[in-house]
């Protein structure tokens, strides 16, 4: 059985207790999307301020468990100031890291594995242990899916 230390790395607890980029932005200028974790009811809103194709700023509001909130906080740090193309790449890498147990767990997204270096992941690597706890994967991916939603809503 994987231990708690696999899940609750220090970085995670830090981001959970001191979430970065917490709050809201007025819309517009921000775009926003709401995400639900159907398994537990956690809700999260992601606000993004785009400047051209760069994520100028991001804020996150809502409730959640340590994994969902720390993942959101880590994501906000990782994508802030990045171009949409860079964010796309990060998203693929992150999903790839989270999809190790895709076929046996309840996860449905068949993610094509992506080659990546640990350096590219940066602090996000702290969430690697989550894949050993398949039910919690949805917690870790909620903020990312909500970000994608926000960007897609804008497009349409």
């Amino acid at each position, binding site marked *: 059985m994987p231990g*708690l230390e696999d899940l609750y790395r220090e970085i995670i607890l830090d981001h959970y207790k001191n979430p970065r980029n917490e709050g809201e932005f007025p819309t517009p200028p921000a775009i926003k999307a709401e995400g639900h974790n159907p398994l*537990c*009811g956690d809700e999260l809103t992601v606000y993004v301020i785009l400047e051209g194709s760069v994520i100028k700023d991001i804020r996150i509001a809502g*409730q959640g*468990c340590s994994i969902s909130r720390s993942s959101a906080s880590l994501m906000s740090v990782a994508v802030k100031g990045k171009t949409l193309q860079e964010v796309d790449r990060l998203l693929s890498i992150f999903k790839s890291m989270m999809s190790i147990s895709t076929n046996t767990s309840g996860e449905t997204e068949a993610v094509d594995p992506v080659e990546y270096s640990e350096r590219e992941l940066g602090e996000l690597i702290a969430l690697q242990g989550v894949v050993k706890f398949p039910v919690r994967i949805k917690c870790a991916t909620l903020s990312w899916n909500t970000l994608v939603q926000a960007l897609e809503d804008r497009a349409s």
Partner: protein
Amino acid sequence: MNTHGLEAKPLNVSDIRKDFPIFSQPDGKSLYFLDSAASSQKPLQVLNAMDNYYCTTHANVHRGVYRLAEQATELYESARGKIGRFIGAPNPSREIIFTKNATESINLLSNSLSRGTLKRGDVVVLTEMEHHANLVPWLIAKEQLGIEIRYIMVDENGYLNLDNIDEVLRNAKILSITLASNVLGTINPVSQLAELAHKNGAIVIGDGAQFVPHVATNVTALGVDFLAFTGHKMLGPTGIGILWGKSALLDSLPPFMGGGDMITDVTLDGFSPNELPWKFEAGTPPIAEAIGLGAAIDYLENLGMDRIREHELELLSYGIEMLESNFGENITIHGPRNINDRGGVISFDFKDIHPHDISQILDQSGVCVRAGHHCAKPLMRHLGVAATARASFHIYNEQSDIDALIDALAKAQAFFG
């Protein structure tokens, strides 16, 4: 099989636990299973009844002339009788309908009532504490037919607010209400509400999923017209649910699903439905599951539902006391303070620790509690939380389960503190 002593004595839990193989985990670790409100464990007697059936008697029911098929039919139909008697049904052989779970039982009703009984603008009354199983079917009917749904709201003590009940029930066509909340534990005054609803000419549906497994049930005393419940929460297998209904009402409703066994005749142009209860049982039913559920009922009756209720009340009062004395201000326990108004369910919030994290950390000590919205999102909003942690009991639980819960919670507090 254990006989578990006389009527008046408390349950002998250590004897009972011997009947439940799950408590001998392969890795030898202790299992403190506090999630029976989600699904109960099964005694060997239930597994053996199903295995015996498969190993000696299996054949499809109702249509075969040969001995195996006849015996399978007899076992299946006599499970129906057993279940009917367990809830005091006046006419089990016509009124007990086997479904796949309580959810199907309620969908059967919402679907069938939507085809003739309910019309645009008609009022269906639910409560704010319903499980999604007793919300979404009616929300679908609302989408399709344009019915109006009214809610009996929940007060700050976890009871239904009945102040304006006459108004809420006025002109109601249906009142569908849970007998016991899977989150708050609240046991609702269903017979009183049924009487009021009947005065308004409404049909009354009870969701007994959290009640029938724990409290002696008599449909006539409850005064409901329909009762839905589910096998897997009452020591029975997965894959089986029950709908009880008054014959006259069942007779008047159109069938839900179409297929084998539910017809008298079929032509290329139309069909005529079968008699009760088969009219509502399309296709091959959950045969082994009905037989397993019959064995579960034997097991429960052998212990005695009154003793089971006593046992759960004791655990409930010990559990609430221990949680409050150990964690005081850091814990919020939802639901009525008077344990006599509660089922064996304790939902709680822990200051600054999300239920997911609590459940995960408790699991390291072998303590199983549920974390989440418990399929009652509207109630969660009322409570102002996204999720709660929930410990729930059945006959195999004892004080040591609660002690383990307290120890593990203390660890979680230290970890996140």
